């Protein structure tokens, strides 16, 4: 009886339309989910930096994997500076399709200035029809006020907000998590392997940091832990005479 009343009270205290606490996006890997307190927090900003510019493709893959997990057929916006498109290429529809994302539910916005990028991200985040917003910036400082605004906008709609960077930065940021990602060798005897990344969780507001080697599995559309398939310390394929399965 008391418990039922408590539940009713709890329901009344909640403002309408808002569910209990922020939604969580589990990555499906228990070690990471435990560190993140259940999974990646939706409705918050996450920062993913490439350890160097050449690793931007890996960062894109990691981010798109998260987007893919966020919804069955997520509608996502990719907002990028003109420079970045010229340097690193634009998202390729055929590649998106292979990644399990539907290209027709994707909108690309190219902007000339950093200011416009942050504004467009904020606008897209405030829209309830958008499940994920990815902003990609080349380098340089980013205004902490802008980051806080993005976090607020994401919290309003509960969308997944990702900020990609071409290189790690040290500036103070209110992002919920901060990752540094670089690509990892996945080559086997039959050629290049599946998308594989080393993901360092360097900042986490809800738990410890950590490092994992993840692989994106196209067939079932999720991340799998690749640590056990290949040791991280020595890239075995540097020595072709020693075949490592």
């Amino acid at each position, binding site marked *: 009886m008391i418990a039922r009343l408590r539940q009713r009270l709890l329901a009344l205290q909640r403002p309408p339309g808002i569910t209990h606490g922020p939604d969580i996006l589990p990555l499906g890997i228990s070690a990471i989910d435990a560190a993140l307190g259940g999974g990646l927090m939706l409705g918050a900003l996450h920062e993913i930096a490439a350890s160097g510019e050449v690793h*931007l493709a890996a960062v894109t893959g990691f981010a*798109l994997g998260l987007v893919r997990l966020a919804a069955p057929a997520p509608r996502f916006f990719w907002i990028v500076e003109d420079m970045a498109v010229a340097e690193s290429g634009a*998202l390729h529809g055929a*590649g998106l399709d292979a990644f399990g994302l539907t290209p027709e539910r994707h909108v690309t916005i190219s902007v000339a200035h950093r200011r416009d990028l942050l504004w467009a991200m904020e606008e897209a985040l405030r*829209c309830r029809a958008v499940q994920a917003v990815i902003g990609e910036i080349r380098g340089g400082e980013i205004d902490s006020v802008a980051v806080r605004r993005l976090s607020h906008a994401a919290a309003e709609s509960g969308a997944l907000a990702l900020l990609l960077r071409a290189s790690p930065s040290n500036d103070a940021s209110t992002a919920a998590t901060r990752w540094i990602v670089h690509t990892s060798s*996945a080559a086997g005897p039959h050629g290049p392997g599946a998308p594989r990344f080393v993901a360092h969780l360097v900042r986490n507001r809800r738990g410890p940091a950590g490092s994992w080697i993840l692989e994106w599995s196209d067939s079932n559309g999720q991340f799998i832990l690749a640590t056990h398939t290949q040791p991280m310390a020595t890239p075995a394929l540097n020595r072709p005479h020693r075949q490592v399965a």
Partner: protein
Amino acid sequence: MRERDDARRRSAPLVITGKRGNVEILTAVDDAAEQLSLFPGLALAQARAMHPGIDVVAENTDADLALLESIADWCLRYTPLVACDAPDSLLLDISGCAHLYGGEQKLVADLRGRLENAGFAFSLAVAGTIGAAWAAAHHGEPASYACGEERAFLTPLPLSALRLPPTTLASLARVGLKCIGDIVDLPRAPLTARFGSEVLRQLNRALGHEHEPLTPRLPVAPYVAEQRFAEPIAREEDVLAITERLARRLQFAMERRGDGARRIELALFRTDGVVRRITAGTSRPLRNPGEIGALFVERLAALGDALDPGFGFDMARLSVLVAEPCQPEQIGGGEDAAELCRLVDRLSARLGARRVRRLVAQDSHIPELAEVALPAQTINDVAGWDVFHRYRKEAELSPRPLRLLTRPEPIETVAEVPDGPPLRFRWRRALHEVIAAEGPERIEGTWWSEHGGPARDYFRVEDKSGLRFWLFRAGLYRDLAQGAAAPTWFLHGTFA
């Protein structure tokens, strides 16, 4: 128009000159010069000989035309049907508009007052036909003539008032026909036989026997709402408030016909005669005033200081340039689709429609042509990807890169000849050692086209540090014997 520089010459009579054929002649003269009996058409050398002190300025037809067009824009405040009749005339169709000013007389008075304030010398005439109005303004007594009076006042005017080519005028003059009255009652068949059909057509048009179409400079919008202000407005908030109020008026008109706006223009008439035109596009037919207002919030924000209200705007006009039938509810979308459209509109209004794009699959097997990014506003339904998806599954297409470079970048490679993958390559000055490769996947050039380019052999390679690239060799070694260019290598994309 050039400013005259020093005070001494300011008092000198001013003439404008231009080259006609091989002769420099006067094209326009000011009042002082006219009193010296200089007139347009006189040779410059002759004018100089008569009055060495005149100030001579070369004509600038481009600037004249630009000025005429800006005046035409400004005249949109009276009627949407304004046509430029270069070099020096404007035609306004004021049928149905005069009552807004309280009658023709008041409209003319208003126009006269404003043009005088702006410092223009002009002559205004109102008549039932374009030809009659033109004749009255250029040759007769500028005034207002009712329909049916044309014949009476055209009779004494010279034939040049009929807008005839000079050669026709000359041949008419040769036989002593100088006034319109001379030909008005002549038998028509011989007149046409001798001087061509142009004479009769112009006469009929001036008299109102034949319809003369007016080609407006700007297309006439299907829906227009406007507002004049007793006191000019300058603040952005006021402009936005008035935009919304005008949009509300348009809403009723559009609802009645079941239309929605796809392209909207806000014209702001500045007190000094400058007209600011701001357009915004929408991704679906729109008639909600709040949403239309929101588009202009972004447009004005993007303009920033470029709006430049000066001493304020004394009139605003909102016109729907393109309207489309508007379904009460979007099919298959619901609330989400509507919200997405709003977002796309807002982003496109602020950043420009070309910057907000969606990918559309194309019917091509060349990777860079297989898709095209089109403005998200213009495409409501992105089709083609499900077909591609099925094709990719059935054909077991090898993996495609996540990011494709805007154009393939040439790389230096060491590769096995003739068909092997590269062993190492240099891209953007960095050397990559290839440890694994997959391929080749041959993509033939478009052999049916001249600019098809050679066949490409694509390889998916992974380098020592784990970076995965999409490379291709353009051209085949076996074609070398037939005189083809040596194959070259390119990097086209990157895999995650």
